[in-house]
């Protein structure tokens, strides 16, 4: 393997900027925030150059949580890879699952049955609510509103309970599978979801009552961490962070997947692209997600929850006990997996953080040749300097909180 030594690169490859912060002027101070700092929401290290309390320069450093998920996925079968891909964006595992599964389904040329599609939409939106609630709690905590943290995490707990009931796991359900779902939803699914959705608006209103008119909170989030729409596009921002700048790009509307086209919902947009707008866009997204959930819950049809193709999805267990054919299918699917036709495909979904896309390359075998993730948080992290420069150190915390990066996804 040809080895490349970065120190041997021609000088034009090395940025004096990257090192400038190390040798700063006397009256400036260089501090390192993270990787172990509660307000960095994970393992982000920011090297800050300060002039008094003002941030003059900021260099993000990532990679502390690199676990080689993309490399691992290449060594697993198509179906097994779902479980490691699950662990990228750990606050919203289902959107990882869904984007990857949609990519594989496109390669296979199959589509999940209607029941599975509606359940996927419902769970995706519940997942978005859970992720935004975790964001709301931690943001409140970062900005000194501690009670929000307990309320929001308590609400998120209700959603995790639904996931536990449905998939058996609270955090990384791996519930969305190629051709449908891992299993059918339990009998009491409609009841528990309806109960949760019924309680949700009032409880969210309680949280809003604490924050929205709170002068201390408003003073801390207004007019800081701005980014212009042009810059936001150049930095590849997506999701609520982009929409706060006034651009209404939402994958659910721009490139409808599943059956989002059938649902009636709005895409909240901000105007200034500052922390205040990002806060409000996310809060309104919570309500829009609730709206979609209520619509989806009423529409879930009866029928198959996975494709009834024995070459693609597992046969029911009772059938395996009775039929030789099914036993062979079961064994083959579990041990060897499925062959996916040669091709390259890109599928993306709107995760709570932005557009998460999978560029999947198949060589026709039972394992993916390459699984490239487009992680929204990765691009958001490298837009942080643009938002933080010129702000106070205390505001840096607010900016990171409302950009909401998840480092499992940044570092993969």
């Amino acid at each position, binding site marked *: 393997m040809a080895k490349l030594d970065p120190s041997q690169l021609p000088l034009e490859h090395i940025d004096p900027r990257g090192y400038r912060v190390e040798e700063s002027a006397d009256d400036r101070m260089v501090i390192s925030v993270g990787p172990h700092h509660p307000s960095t929401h994970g393992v982000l290290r920011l090297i800050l150059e300060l002039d008094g309390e003002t941030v003059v320069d900021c260099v993000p450093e990532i990679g502390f949580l690199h676990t080689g998920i993309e490399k691992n996925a290449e060594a697993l079968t198509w179906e097994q890879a779902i479980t490691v891909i699950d662990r990228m964006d750990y606050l919203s595992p289902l959107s990882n699952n869904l984007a990857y599964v949609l990519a594989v389904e496109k390669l296979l040329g199959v589509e999940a049955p209607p029941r599975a599609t509606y359940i996927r939409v419902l769970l995706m939106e519940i997942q978005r609510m859970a992720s935004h609630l975790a964001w709301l709690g931690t943001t409140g905590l970062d900005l000194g509103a501690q009670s929000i943290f307990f309320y929001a995490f308590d609400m998120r707990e209700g959603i995790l309970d639904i996931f536990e009931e449905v998939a058996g796991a609270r955090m990384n359900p791996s519930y969305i599978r190629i051709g449908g779902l891992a299993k059918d939803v339990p009998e009491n699914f409609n009841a528990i979801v309806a109960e949760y959705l019924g309680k949700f608006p009032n409880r969210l209103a309680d949280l809003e009552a604490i924050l929205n008119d709170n002068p201390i909170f408003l003073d801390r989030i207004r007019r800081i961490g701005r980014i212009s729409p042009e810059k936001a596009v150049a930095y*590849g921002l997506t999701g609520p962070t982009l929409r706060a700048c006034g651009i209404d*790009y939402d994958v659910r509307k721009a490139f409808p997947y599943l059956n989002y086209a059938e649902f009636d919902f709005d895409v909240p947009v901000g105007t200034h692209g500052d922390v205040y707008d990002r806060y409000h866009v996310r809060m309104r997204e919570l309500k829009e997600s609730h709206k979609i959930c209520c619509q989806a819950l009423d529409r879930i049809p009866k029928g198959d929850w996975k494709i009834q193709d024995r070459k693609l999805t597992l046969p029911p267990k009772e059938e395996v006990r009775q039929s030789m054919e099914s036993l062979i299918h079961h064994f083959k699917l579990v041990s060897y997996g499925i062959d996916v036709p040669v*091709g390259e495909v*890109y599928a993306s979904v709107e995760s709570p953080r932005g557009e998460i896309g999978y560029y999947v390359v198949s060589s026709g075998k039972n394992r993916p040749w390459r699984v490239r993730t487009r992680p929204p948080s990765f*691009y958001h992290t490298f837009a942080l300097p643009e938002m933080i420069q010129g702000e106070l150190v205390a505001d840096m915390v607010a900016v990171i909180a409302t950009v909401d990066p998840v480092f499992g996804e940044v570092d993969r």
Partner: protein
Amino acid sequence: MKPEALSESFARSFPSEVETLETPFEIPQYRVKPESLRVVLQFLKQQGYTMLLDIGGVDYHPKSPRFEVVYHLLDIQSNDRVRLRCSPQDEDPVVPSVADLWASAAPAEREVFDLFGVRFSGHPNLTRILMPDDWEGYPLRKDYPLRGPRDEVEAKFAAERNRYYAPKLAGDL
């Protein structure tokens, strides 16, 4: 810009540089030579593809050309996407950097360099991003062992290795 219009304008402006590939799934794709990559991307940016969604690498080892750098662009006004695929040479792969055209390209190119060893000429700060700075080798290359260099060292204890990771188990059945 619509895919048909894009193909036409490519045929007009870059007859020899851009090769149109078939489009099996929605996104039209084109193959571009590394030397004309910058011109084509600049052209696309002027045509309204203002967002560089993603830069990813693929290693097709042992095929040749081995590496491929894949660019996904988005026209945020008309919601059109396009994919450019660019294959640098196998030995010492170099692709021109577009970090000055899109701010998002800088970290994405660093990642491709880090994991595949594809260099981006003209990049302002081409250093490792996910792996430690003193790491040897490029992990996402196909000839890089799954568990890193220790896989080669421990090869003689093959039987003790974790069965789950045994490289050929699933494929050999």
